[in-house]
């Protein structure tokens, strides 16, 4: 191990008291083990199979500031954040940099027993409840997850008790606002007890002129018979690096549906791991990545079929323009005895220029025989025949191209259940292709 990690190891050692002083005991308790693990492994290198095409250590090399003192960001969130989904009724909360911030204007009444709030505050007020969940999945995560646990000081908790349905979407908006290079560590914990139901919309925005890096660890527990949708939309800037880890544990007969959309970004790595630990669980993980300039978008997924009779479906699509890079690695791991597993994965990629690069790596690891597993992956271009056909009918070439790209992306959007969000995304994607995203009026964020 050599390089950037040493700086962070020292930083952590020197500021341990400062970090702890602002945080609940539960958060502090987990730091030691993570520290030991991070010290042992350091940042992943390109020799690490999982990071072959995403040189992450370099991203940590900038002299970032970290808000370990928990200085309050002076931000009027609802004034700044206008890029909303029209007609979407939601319970909205913010993570500003890496601190929780409620949205007074949008506080709606939640069903009885549902907890939505600051991770740090709820870890203090409900230690026994969170104890069963906090860092239970991330403790076995990679070194970036350990890094996050070392430094994490706040984030969001959602707890939905058994037999409870949260009808309205819970919207968690992450914003970055600072005047220095910033490194943020965010943490989200989602607990759905048995037979409960919720929809979550994660919006990731950054607007600052300086470089920023955010690590995010999201731990999700989906109880027996529970049903959860998470839509994660990244609309950050070219100077933002995001390293997100989503860890999901599903119990019997639960449903989990995830859709991760990268519209604009700088350098992104999303690791999505779903463990199916109860019979009859179903999971669907999907992604859409649109890249141009020198954007780097990496989605690594693992679906861990640990028990029989579970189903998983996966669809990831990339559209890469200019000098952008796409990385997709999806593994389906079928454990011994996970019989009657049905697992399907599809990855389709469009490279629009000769400077765009795609690295695709679908993987199957199968230890049970009575299974239906398949994956398919393609890299190609827009269909020339279709383009010509459209041109012949009078559609300009550029327009035809947009239409085809839009259709290509549409397959992923179709997996979204919230109609207003789906409509909004269709518009955003169209704008994105026309190069109009980031030019919308009325919003201070997207200047």
């Amino acid at each position, binding site marked *: 191990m050599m390089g950037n990690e040493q700086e962070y190891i020292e930083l952590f050692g020197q500021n341990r008291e400062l970090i702890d002083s602002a945080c609940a005991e539960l958060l502090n308790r987990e730091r030691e083990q993570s520290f030991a693990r991070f010290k042992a492994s350091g940042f992943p290198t390109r020799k690490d*199979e999982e990071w072959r*095409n995403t040189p992450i250590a370099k991203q940590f090399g900038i002299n970032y500031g970290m808000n370990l003192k928990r200085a309050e960001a002076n931000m009027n969130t609802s004034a700044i954040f206008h890029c909303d989904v029209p007609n979407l009724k939601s319970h909205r909360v913010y993570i500003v940099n890496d601190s929780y911030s409620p949205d007074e204007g949008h506080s709606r009444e939640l069903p009885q027993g549902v907890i939505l709030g600051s991770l740090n505050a709820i870890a203090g007020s409900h230690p026994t409840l969170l104890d069963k969940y906090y860092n239970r999945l991330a403790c076995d995560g990679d070194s970036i997850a350990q890094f996050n646990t070392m430094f994490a000081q706040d984030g969001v908790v959602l707890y939905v008790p058994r037999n409870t349905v949260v009808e309205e979407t819970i919207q968690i908006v992450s914003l970055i606002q600072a005047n220095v290079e910033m490194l943020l560590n965010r943490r989200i914990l989602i607990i759905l007890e048995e037979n409960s139901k919720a929809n979550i919309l994660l919006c990731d925005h950054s607007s600052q002129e300086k470089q920023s890096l955010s690590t995010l660890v999201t731990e999700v527990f989906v109880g027996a018979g529970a049903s959860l949708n998470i839509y994660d939309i990244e609309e950050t800037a070219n100077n933002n690096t995001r390293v997100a880890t989503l860890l999901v544990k599903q119990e019997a007969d639960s449903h989990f549906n995830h859709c991760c959309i990268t519209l604009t970004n700088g350098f992104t790595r999303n690791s999505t791991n779903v463990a199916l630990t109860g019979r009859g669980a179903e999971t669907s993980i999907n992604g859409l990545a649109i890249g141009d300039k020198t954007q780097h978008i990496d989605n690594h997924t693992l679906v861990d079929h640990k028990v029989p009779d579970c189903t998983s479906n996966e669809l990831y699509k990339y559209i890469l323009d200019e000098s952008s890079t796409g990385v997709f690695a999806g593994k389906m791991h079928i454990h*011994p*005895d996970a*019989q009657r597993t049905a697992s399907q994965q599809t990855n389709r*990629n469009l*490279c*629009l*220029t*000769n400077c*765009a*690069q*795609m*690295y*695709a*790596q*679908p*993987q*199957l*690891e*199968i*230890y*049970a*025989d*009575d*299974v*239906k*597993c*398949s*994956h*398919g*992956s*393609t*890299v*190609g*271009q827009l269909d020339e025949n279709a383009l010509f056909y459209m041109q012949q009918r009078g559609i300009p070439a550029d327009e035809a191209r947009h239409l085809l790209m839009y259709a290509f992306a549409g397959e992923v959007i179709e997996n979204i259940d919230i109609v207003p969000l789906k409509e909004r995304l269709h518009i955003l994607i169209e704008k994105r292709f026309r190069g109009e995203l980031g030019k919308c009026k009325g919003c201070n964020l997207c200047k």
Partner: protein
Amino acid sequence: MKKKNNILKKLANKAYEFGFVSKIKTDIIESGLSEDTIRLISRKKNEPEWMLEFRLTAYRHWLTMEMPQWAHLDIPPIDYQAISYYADPLKKNKENKNKEIDPELMKTFEKLGIPLEERLALSGTAVDAVMDSVSVKTTFKEELKEKGIIFSSMGEAIQEHPELVRKYLGTVVNYRDNFFAALNTAVFSDGSFVYIPKGVRCPRELSTYFRINAANTGQFERTLIIADDNSYVSYLEGCTAPMRDENQLHAAIVEIVVNENAEVKYSTVQNWYPGDAEGKGGVYNFVTKRGDCRGNNSKLSWTQVETGSAITWKYPSCILRGDNSQGEFYSVALTNNYQQADTGTKMIHLGKNTKSTIISKGISAGKSQNSYRGLVRVSKNADNARNYSQCDSLLLGDKCGAHTFPYMDIHNNSAIVEHEATTSKISEDQLFYCNQRGIGTEEAIGLIVNGYAREVLNKLPMEFAVEAQKLLSVSLEGAVG
């Protein structure tokens, strides 16, 4: 069902029919590896100085390297000092200095079905027979020579055609390429050398038969095939080894150069001893095979049927350098008992309008692990590259594993690359249908597996295809309980 299991067990024990040991006087050097060992091998082979330097450079580099760990394999530590790096089964006849063939050795190859007398040859196949470290005999040399074709052992080629060997050896697989390539370059003993001159279609199938006989030896053969402009050759390779409790190491290199408009077909039926039903013994098969399609419109086709070896680590690859060049990889890999295989291919698209096809059929049974690993890389200037890959796995039983690890690295936007993978098992319905027509379960599995692999078997020359079919059935005996 109980009764059946006993029969299956008996069958399993007789499965490896090439497991006999031949009693042949063999000149084996002491085990251990050092610069002196390499000098000794080079001296025994009476090699020129440049060859010794070539070996020593590789050896020194090897010392700095580590065993690769990335494969989905559990490889026990190998003691490279416990292996003997040279075993020569040919007796030296002091009077005429020519080596003569021990009658036992002739018998060995007859038993393997490889007659070394030309009059017994199988439908026009010329054979180079390699036992342990030495090429025993090459048939039909004279006839081929008339067309300008050189087909000889590597040892002979170094003596007789040093200019060709020097020009091409190590240019496709550099000694720095990987751990086993470096080791092979340092200690390689023998193998086949083929040169097909411009405009010549080789009239016979050329074939090398490899046999490990001596105990505690490694086999490190080296094969070099050069197909000059507008030429064609079909080359076959077969291999077996005795049943021994210790593991034996086989680390070969095959280099192929394909020039303009030339075509090479390379077929392998690999049946090294796989170890017994408890996973004891067997050959470690760590092989680097690569072809360089240097010329425009050149074509290289790999076909492999892998049923043997305790551990297989092998990725026959194509560098598609010439414009319009084509690479193909057809593979059946069957693992049973405790066998492990991590095999596949690399297709490196460099030229324009290059095309590659990958068809891989894995069959896992018993407690074995079977992985496909393949890379398709389209470089920046490789306009209009096309690749199609299909990787299927068939699982027989719930104690084995079937894995697929494709890598697609695409740097050109005119590429169309497609990969598909599926897994399946033999359904109860299919077995019962066969049973109802009077076909026993064991035979039905053989039938269905051969049907599953047919797309690949069809690519093999006739005799090999028949052999391969039998091999698949025999290798699966005892796989179902």
